[in-house]
């Protein structure tokens, strides 16, 4: 039997385990990180330093009754959390963790990640709408307009990288940056002098795309209670949260591959999956750090940021990169 069928399935299972654990323990990291920043301890009671807390939370969420309020669109209400989870999970398959750890080498993997992200958007929209709750509807509309607005600078930035590498394959993009950190796209000053800016833009966009603070318009609890998740309890809520954390992981992976050299070591020694993991966890920590530092933006200010600052900057960067590639 051809092993090529089973390879993606095995990887999918592995990545599901990785993703599930990540989602659970990122919640723990988030709480611990927030605690440290705020000079608290965070969870301490369940297990050593609260290490079993995610399991307890998961158990709690799973054993709770799945409440479907009256007046909601039954089918869509139930589908939405699953729909939010699946694309994030599937995205893991095309991400190369190392030169030989990758679920499936897809030629257009960059594009595929964005294509899958659009399903997540539909999930939020459906979840918000089906909840038959005004807050949820407002939140869904906000989340989607935000995601659409930030997809543009994000894609523009990705195009610069694709132009530099000449490939839409994440594997190729990462291979192109092997060696010391001066080969990383963030420091490729020979391709465009704005690469660090472009990295910043990409990072901001990925924060916004994952609906994280300070761009968590969709879950602005002081305005919209819990946004599109207002009516969800138990595992419906749990799946949305897992999808959110998975999106963070995917965003961090994508940033690492596009800008931080994937699994390459900063000093050109022993490249490997551990470097990749170190980099994504540093990025995830930055997500958490940013979240617990800033107040939330306002929805129109957020769109202004995208249209007035990020899109012009990324366009200029695109043009400059094109000029550099043509000239040098």
């Amino acid at each position, binding site marked *: 039997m051809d092993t090529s069928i089973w390879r993606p399935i095995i990887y999918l299972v592995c990545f599901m385990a990785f993703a599930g654990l990540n989602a659970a323990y990122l919640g723990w990291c988030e709480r611990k990180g927030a605690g440290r920043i705020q*000079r608290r301890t965070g969870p301490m009671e369940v297990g050593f330093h609260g290490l079993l807390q995610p399991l307890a939370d998961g158990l709690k969420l799973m054993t709770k009754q799945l409440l479907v309020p009256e007046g909601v669109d039954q089918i869509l209400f139930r589908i939405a959390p699953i729909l939010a989870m699946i694309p994030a999970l599937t995205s893991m398959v095309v991400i190369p963790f190392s030169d030989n750890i990758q679920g499936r080498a897809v030629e257009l993997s960059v594009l595929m990640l964005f294509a899958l992200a659009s399903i997540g958007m539909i999930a939020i929209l459906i979840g918000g709408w089906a909840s038959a709750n005004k807050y949820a509807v407002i939140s869904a509309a906000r989340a989607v307009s935000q995601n659409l607005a930030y997809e543009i600078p994000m894609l523009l930035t990705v195009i610069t990288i694709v132009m530099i590498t000449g490939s839409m394959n994440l594997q190729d993009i990462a291979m192109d940056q092997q060696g010391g950190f001066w080969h990383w796209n963030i420091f490729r000053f020979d391709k465009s002098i704005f690469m660090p800016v472009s990295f910043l833009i990409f990072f901001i966009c990925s924060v916004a795309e994952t609906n994280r603070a300070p761009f968590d318009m969709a879950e602005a609890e002081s305005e919209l209670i819990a946004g599109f998740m207002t009516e969800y309890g138990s595992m419906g809520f749990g799946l949305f949260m897992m999808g959110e954390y998975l999106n963070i992981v995917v965003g961090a992976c994508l940033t690492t591959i596009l800008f931080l050299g994937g699994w390459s070591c900063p000093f050109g020694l022993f490249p490997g999956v551990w470097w990749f993991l170190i980099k994504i966890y540093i990025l995830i920590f930055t997500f958490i*750090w940013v979240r617990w*530092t800033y107040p939330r933006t306002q929805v129109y200010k957020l769109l202004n940021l995208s249209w007035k600052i990020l899109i012009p900057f990324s366009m200029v960067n695109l043009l400059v990169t094109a000029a550099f590639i043509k000239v040098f």
Partner: protein
Amino acid sequence: MSAYWNDVFGGAKSLAIGLSITAREFFKPVITMQYPWEVPEIPERYRGHIELVKNEKTGKPKCICCGMCMRSCPSGCISLVGKKPEGEKKKVLTKYELDFTKCSLCGSCIESCNFGAIRFSKDYNLASTRKEDYVFDLLKRLEEQG
């Protein structure tokens, strides 16, 4: 246009400063108290619910059942009964009940007492699901305290 660049660069700077502050706090020691494991020190004047004071010599409560506390209480949570036993001049306290569900810990009762017969306790960790548990029999409490 200069306002635009000001927004971009000034804004970026302010955000970076914010991050540097929280990063510094990240490595500072924890300042919270792990409550059930560490308990705060209760100050001298802490106003818990009231309790009776014992006369050191006789071992009986100092209370002479004048009822001033009962009258001064804004919410009427104190009820006390004193009886005159045979052959005694003074009344003896037979029942002193505090309905803590109504008490607002204002201390009017203690101020009104001219004999120093009641004082604030240091009980702060009261918890119960039944409201009957908050009707304290202070006389019994005094006996239990020994």
